[in-house]
């Protein structure tokens, strides 16, 4: 399978796991990663700059109408929902909160599932609410690959547990193993590209 995007949903405990993931991915990692981290409405973007400085990849806030590029990690802006269009650009919206959250993981995941179908990888990480469960179900329905952080290894186990109750996940792994798996998948992607070019 050739994957075109990874979406990640993460809530409480998220800053630590995003630090680990963004620092661990190698410079030639291609698949774009789009992240909803629950933050307060007035949160500034300094933490994104900090992540960016420590990472091999470009990490930035997802801009309205921006085209999704390889080798980039996008983070949803505070106080807006982030959606993905079928032409692989971002849309923002200030609809009502979903699961008390804006940005909401479900909103990102559901639109990403429509846009990428089976070429999507969905990941639910640490968090203490059930945002992301409906979204990961939708990703599965559309044929995407689903990965959930093993609740035993999560700072806040509730969100991954809720996702596990929702679907038969393809993988339930520790954070370290998730990173390793993503690198493996990205390498396979690149070989696949070479083969079919």
């Amino acid at each position, binding site marked *: 399978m050739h994957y075109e995007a990874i979406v990640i949903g993460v809530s409480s405990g998220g800053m630590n796991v995003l630090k680990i993931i963004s620092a661990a991915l190698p410079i030639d990692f291609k698949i774009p990663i789009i992240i909803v981290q629950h933050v307060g409405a007035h949160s500034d973007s300094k933490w994104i700059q900090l992540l960016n400085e420590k990472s091999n990849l470009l990490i930035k806030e997802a801009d309205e109408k921006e085209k999704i590029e390889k080798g980039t990690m996008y983070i949803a802006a505070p106080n807006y929902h982030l*959606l993905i269009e079928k032409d692989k650009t971002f849309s923002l919206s200030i609809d009502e909160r979903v699961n008390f959250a804006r940005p909401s993981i479900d909103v990102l995941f559901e639109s990403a599932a429509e846009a990428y179908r089976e070429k999507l990888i969905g990941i639910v990480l640490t968090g203490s609410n059930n945002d992301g469960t409906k979204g990961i179900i939708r990703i599965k329905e559309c044929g995407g690959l689903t990965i959930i952080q093993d609740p035993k290894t999560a700072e806040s186990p509730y969100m991954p547990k809720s996702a596990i109750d929702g679907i038969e996940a393809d993988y339930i792994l520790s954070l370290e193993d998730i990173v390793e798996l993503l690198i493996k998948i990205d390498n396979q992607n690149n070989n696949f590209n070479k083969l079919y070019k």
Partner: protein
Amino acid sequence: MQYKDTSDLEISLLLEAIYRKHGYDFRQYSQAHIRRRIMNRMAISGFEDVSQMQSKVLNDEIFASELLQDLSITVTEMFRDPAFYRSLREKVIPILKTYPFIKIWHAGCATGEEAYSMAIVLQEEGLYDRTTIYATDFNQLALNQAKDGIFSNKMIKEYTTNYQLSGGKESFSSYYTSSYDNVIMNQSLKKNIVWANHNLVTDSVFAEVNLILCRNVLIYFDKNLQNKVQSLFFNSLINGGVLCLGSKESLRFSDLYEKYMELDTKQRIFKKKY
């Protein structure tokens, strides 16, 4: 929410039906957003598929107006983005002060919170008496609510904080009176606001104005429609007039970018060149 696979074709036929029957044109809105709203309505109203919705839209006025409400997102706040209002006071008010009469257009004013916030700023800056605020939206229900100026007091704590952070000079509670679970905005704030129904997609230039605020409306439009509406704004602004967009909206990709200078890049405030 229970999902079904719904094709783009079904959705575009539904939008076509809404346009042809009711005159509201959502065909160039962000598709992901439209899809989400339609699927939501489908789940709430218990339809099997979009074609069922289509015939309902054609034959049932009440349902059609419900769907229009769904597609118009009226979420808003008073003094949303306090930093924007601070910049408005610092960079835009001095420009407005140079005019004997001031016309302001709030395009997509929703339930009016933004227009009332503006009226408060103008009053504090001593400009309100020579200002007319045109506050427009295509959602008549929202406009009616705006005109009443009655808001739930649930949000007042947040609005008060917003107001203070935005550089407010008074006590926020002096701008409304409380009544049960609501607050009623002062009559003195309403007197120079004209509420009007205007559709940015299908209606033409609205008036010649000194300042346009269109915040968090263009994010729902695709690129072509954004460009079209941007030229509507350009043609409605006098030379030297000011355009304020939402904090995540950009002019940079618009054909008209060159014709403005940036007054505040971060707060998305632009001045039309002479």
